[in-house]
């Protein structure tokens, strides 16, 4: 399967240009979307998930026109929104069973099996008979994951799935994702760079509605290797350095500031070449494309 996004564009009524002429091709496997808050990740994901209209452009899943054939998309979709609520006075078991039936699992026995299995996978088995209203933030998030994975979805779109999960649960989720069949597209948005490094074969960085970088994480890191320079400076010197160099990130280290600077060659002798990471890729692209300074 292949998801092809062509010239996708969307302006909200309040004037925000959420998606700017986006072109992406996403194949089976995990695809990571990285970007700062408000970059347009969620807008893009909602558009693919049939929840909002685009102004122009197209989205195709193989031959299926995602923007038109909404029912078709929904039948193979698993979607976890960034923010969602629940019916407070219904138990997880009842609600998942209900959602499973809405997803087209007509056979009662099958439904029971898959719901129970999922509840175990997301570690909610022992809380299955509690009302959703009593769930903690993390439990609710896991419930969201479970519902997204119901019904063998071929296209899974998860918007910041690990937000609010403790490290154990985050690992459990990563394992769960990796179990998902091969013939499936998983689109995952996050601002935790490490998640993408660990999980995704492919990724894109989105900033202010546009795709600013796309590719395999390792490849992307390779591309910037040699252009990242680091130096430790006093806090008070930061302004001067920012004025003089293309500072892409700063970090506190032992009371001093460690800055990363983008440069084709060594800016001066006091800088040393840094071992580039995906984070540098991210900061570099953001710094280059953002209209507000970081």
């Amino acid at each position, binding site marked *: 399967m292949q998801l092809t996004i062509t010239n996708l564009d969307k302006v909200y009524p309040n004037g925000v240009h959420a998606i700017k002429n986006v072109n992406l091709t996403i194949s089976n496997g995990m695809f990571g979307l990285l970007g700062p808050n408000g970059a347009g990740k969620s807008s893009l994901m909602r558009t693919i998930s049939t929840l909002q*209209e685009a102004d122009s452009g197209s989205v195709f899943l193989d031959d299926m026109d995602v923007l038109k054939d909404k029912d078709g998309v929904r*039948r193979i979709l698993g979607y976890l*929104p960034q923010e*969602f*609520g629940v019916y407070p006075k219904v138990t997880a078991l009842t609600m998942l069973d209900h959602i499973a039936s809405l*997803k087209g699992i007509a056979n009662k026995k099958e439904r029971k099996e898959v719901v129970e299995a999922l509840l*175990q996978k997301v570690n909610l088995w*022992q809380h299955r008979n509690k009302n959703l209203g009593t769930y903690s933030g993390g439990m609710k998030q896991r419930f969201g994951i479970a519902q997204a994975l119901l019904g063998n979805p071929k296209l899974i779109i998860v918007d910041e799935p690990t937000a609010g999960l403790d490290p154990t649960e985050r690992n459990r989720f990563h394992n769960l994702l990796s179990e998902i069949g091969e013939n499936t597209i998983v689109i995952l948005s996050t601002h935790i760079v490490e998640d993408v490094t660990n999980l995704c074969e492919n990724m894109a960085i989105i900033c202010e509605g546009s795709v600013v970088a796309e590719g395999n994480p390792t490849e992307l890191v390779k591309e910037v290797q040699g252009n990242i320079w680091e130096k430790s400076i006093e806090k008070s010197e930061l302004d001067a350095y920012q004025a003089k160099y293309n500072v892409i990130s700063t970090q506190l280290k032992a009371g001093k500031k460690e800055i990363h600077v983008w440069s084709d060659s060594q800016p001066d002798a006091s800088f040393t070449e840094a071992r580039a990471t995906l984070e540098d890729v991210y900061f570099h692209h953001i710094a280059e494309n953002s209209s507000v300074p970081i």
Partner: protein
Amino acid sequence: MFWQIFTFELKYRIKRPATWAYFGILALFGCFIFAAGGISGSEKAHINSPFIISAILGIMSIFGILISAAVMGVPVYRDEEHKVKHYYFTYPISESGYLLGRYFGSMLILFLISIGFHVGVILGVMIGPGLGFEEPERFAAINLWHHIQPSMTIFWPNLIFTGTLFFALVALTRKVFISYVGSVLFLIGYLLAINLSGDLDNQHLAALLDPFGINAFNDITKYWTPVEQNTLVAPLTGDFLTNRLIWLIASALVLGFTLFRFDFTKFVTGGKKGKKVKAVAAETSQKNLLDILPSVNLSFSNSLFVSQLFSQGWLEFKNILVDWYFRAMIIGGVIFLGVDAYMGNKIYGTPSLPLTNYMIESKNGTYIIFVFIILIFFTGEVVHRDKTLKFSQITDALPVPNWVTYGSKFWALTLVCIFMATLVIVVGVFSQTLQGYFNYEFGKYFTDLYLLELPNYLQLTMLAFFVHIMVNKKFLGHIVSIGIWLVLFGINSIGEFNYNMALYSYRPGYRISDMNGFGHFFEAQNSFNIYWLAFGGILLLIGNLFWNRGSESSWKSRLKLAKQRYNKRTLVWMIGLLVLWIGTGAFIYNNVSVKNTWMTSKEGEKRRADFEKKYSKYKHLTQPKITKVTVNVDIFPQERRVLAKGDFVIVNKTAIPIDTLHFNMAGSRPKILEATIDGEELKPGILDTVFNYHRYVMPKTMNYGDTMLMHLTIESAHKGFPNEGFGSDIVDNGTFFNTSIFPSMGYSTQGELTSDLDRKKYDLGVKEYGLPEQTDSIGTCHLLFDDDADYVDYEAIVSTDPDQIAISPGYLQREWEENGRKYFHYKMDSPMLNFYNFCSAKYAVTKDVWKGDSQTVNIEIYHHPTHTQNIDRFIKSVKVSMDYYTQNFSPFQFRQMRILEFPRYANFAQSFANTVPYSEDFGWVGDFSDPEDTDYAFNVTAHEVAHQWWAHQVTPSATRGSNQISESMAEYAALMVLKEEYGEEAIFKFLEYEVNSYLRGRSGESKFEKTLMDNDNQAYVWYRKGGSILYALQDYITADSLNLAFANYIKAAAFRAEAPFTTTLEWFDFIQAKTPDSLRYFLDDSFHKITLYENRMKEATYTDLGNDEYEVTLKFDSQKIYYDGNGKELERGLTPNLLEIGIFAEDGKNETGMTKKMPLFHEKRWIEPGEQSMTIRVKGKPVKAGIDPYNKMIDRVSDDNLMNCEEGE
């Protein structure tokens, strides 16, 4: 500290849109109510009279509960809601400073909001005259004191009370939910209490317990006349003052308690406690942990979609059922249903049996308001639930078609509608069982609630559903939905536009009867239901296109989605529904506007004015008088058609020659098929089919004494169904119509506009009286009830369906069957009034005989077969009446007395010669098991029988005051018969109703109150005042004397064959002749003037003299006040009046089980007006003492005539 918090609260609230929204709502409300005419009462009372402003402020305080809960509930809750409490309370502020600051700040805002109402009222009064709903002269100049005084005594203290209550509730419980549910429950509880306290004997207690002071206010003002309403504000004294103080102190105590209990730490920590979570034993049964999720088969078929629709709807419905707000509303609705069903249909304070009809009708009481609120509110909940919970992000992306989600939501609401309809049945059956009545008519229940009522609930829901979808904002959706209903309601009741086809979900009224079941109403009900369901379906279809699925709500994207969703199937449905809607619409239009006529009330008014302008010139036109009536009437109940043929012998009794006949038809329905005079066809001169007033040229001029035979053939049939109206004269079972099926001759003033304002509007000149003076030569030439004849000979052949009995006045000569129809031949063998009826129904007959000294009368009761329980009361009443009237007045002129039941489409009984049609609702199903209750079946029967003397023997002329000769006399006679059977206690109970009705009647009078001598159109004077005055008179001069006066009057006036007919002047002369000179003042006060007493006990003490002897000292005030017709005080009586003084032991019971006063001393004494004291010795321990203790005089405050005695120093 207080100051900073207080000012912050003010600044914060003053900028909140909610504050101004409430302000605006109140302003709109005030403006709307007053511009449109306020509470209707007397035309003479100003729309913005201080009385009306006060009364509406009282009502506003009840509904203001909702606003004060919203305003006063949030100031503390705000810190909880926005989680500000976690740091706010760490600031160095004191608890009392915090609470009081918030409290007073919000209270001030609440007052500010309350001013919105006054702003609206003032605006309404300013624009009202221009809008034209009411005449400009009904608006008085704005007087700020009339706003300020009631605000200070009623509105603001009430806001302080409810505001404090809700402030305390939320501050102490931290739950704003409590304040919402609490406000609804409080509102319900209050309305309920008001409902119940109406029955409280102890008015003082009811006045004090009412936290809003409305009872106390009503006690002061209930009998105020228009003049008083326009000038007085309720003085803050007595119970009213005590009440206000009690509830202000209560508010202070509640606030104090809150200050004492409120604690920052508890407020912060207490919130999370909640229920203890049951420690679930960690289930280790993790079964077989699958590595890979089991694979599943997906299917997407229509049948699956349908089952999804129902299961999702069910889930949605369950979510509503567990909602506490829903439960609170349902409990409220059930309570009101129960109260309406239980208190039921009371007549003169006596309950009726809990028939299924009444149980069903309780749905139209307060319950319907709950239905409205629940349906609108929960439609909003259901439509917006997923969005509000933010669950829609998940559900909207699920592979279910739009119509499944959409349908499931509507299905859930349908279940709510079914639930609400079913509740009526459940509560009804429960109520019946509780009252020991087991005749549950489930057929009626189901037919009414599921076939007729449920569609109406669905229509309400469809509109709310559509609005909520289109508006797409919950709160705004509620406002728009309620707004639409207010507009519809306003158009209907204030704009007086009632064309049901144009008002969404409206339909004609109908009534279920035991005799006629659902009768002829199905066709109209079902047509309208289909018509509006089809329209609602169109709304739903449009709503489906705009159903907001997905994360965007801009109109641009919704339009885009709607276009995507629009397909052939939508088109087919749309066309189908449109065809259905237009089809039924055309059908209805044909019925209400083509086969029947409909006009607005303005058009109706104008028509009456035009008719008067065009034809009143014929008012004194001489027409012949009928002397003999022979009719052949064929009733076709199933077809709702009547064919009536009449032969009338007419004679010219005047010296004026007659050459034209004027026929005035009662309506457009009866059609003249044939009209001849002496066999020669009557030629129409002018046929006026607009006003149904036709002029015919007589074939030959009629001179004095000429006699001719007029023959008329009339057809009257109901065609289709009208926009409104029961059309109850010809029905399947229970037909009842009268003389008016035939045209009356000449112009009648009956249909003229009477309201002064209306008449001015149409340049007609004020009409003070409907009848001429008692000395008027034309007036005394005609009879009051019918000027087409004096006495007539009467004979009738009536035919009907073979399973029915048809009845008309006279004695049955013969009955036979012919051509599958049943015929009855009646003939009256003595002259009677030209006033006759025709009834036909499937009757059962109960017969009895009354034997007098020299007379025997056959009593026949024609009744619905199942209505047997009170027949004995009717028969008994006829017998006791016959005894009393033949002994005291004169012999009965007929040999037979018949009572006929007719369906409950109207609620009255009417006396024709030897025949009394009597409504199903008026005694047949009364529950007279409690001896304390008035046996009105007995009383009303006695009244109707009395009319055989007073109306049929003594036939008053068409002059002022004549109604007193029939109605006051019948009322008096019935009271005397009631006394014979039930003792004087029953009379006092009944007189309480009489006096109350009289005083209320005069307080709502739109012209001016008339006297017993000249009253020609005020029922409250001729029944209520007349009855109680004549009763008091016989108490003064003895019943024997008064009855002798009436017997003499009958001797002089009965069966007067020729003009001049009798007037109140003659009547009064006979009364006066038997009244001693000393009591002439009472006659003058009562018959020629408007006189009210103010008798009031001040103190009653006794000293024990030993030997069971006591000396009682009474201090009291006695006043007698004269009023003009407008209710303005003229002067106070200065001469002594003969009034009763009474001293009583504990109450006992009389023979029939009714509570009875036990007098130790009881005497009439001449009492000077003014404050005075009196000492009386009695044997036996005195308990109560009073002046006019039985309320025989008319007194606006009746409960201060008697007071408990206390032991003196």
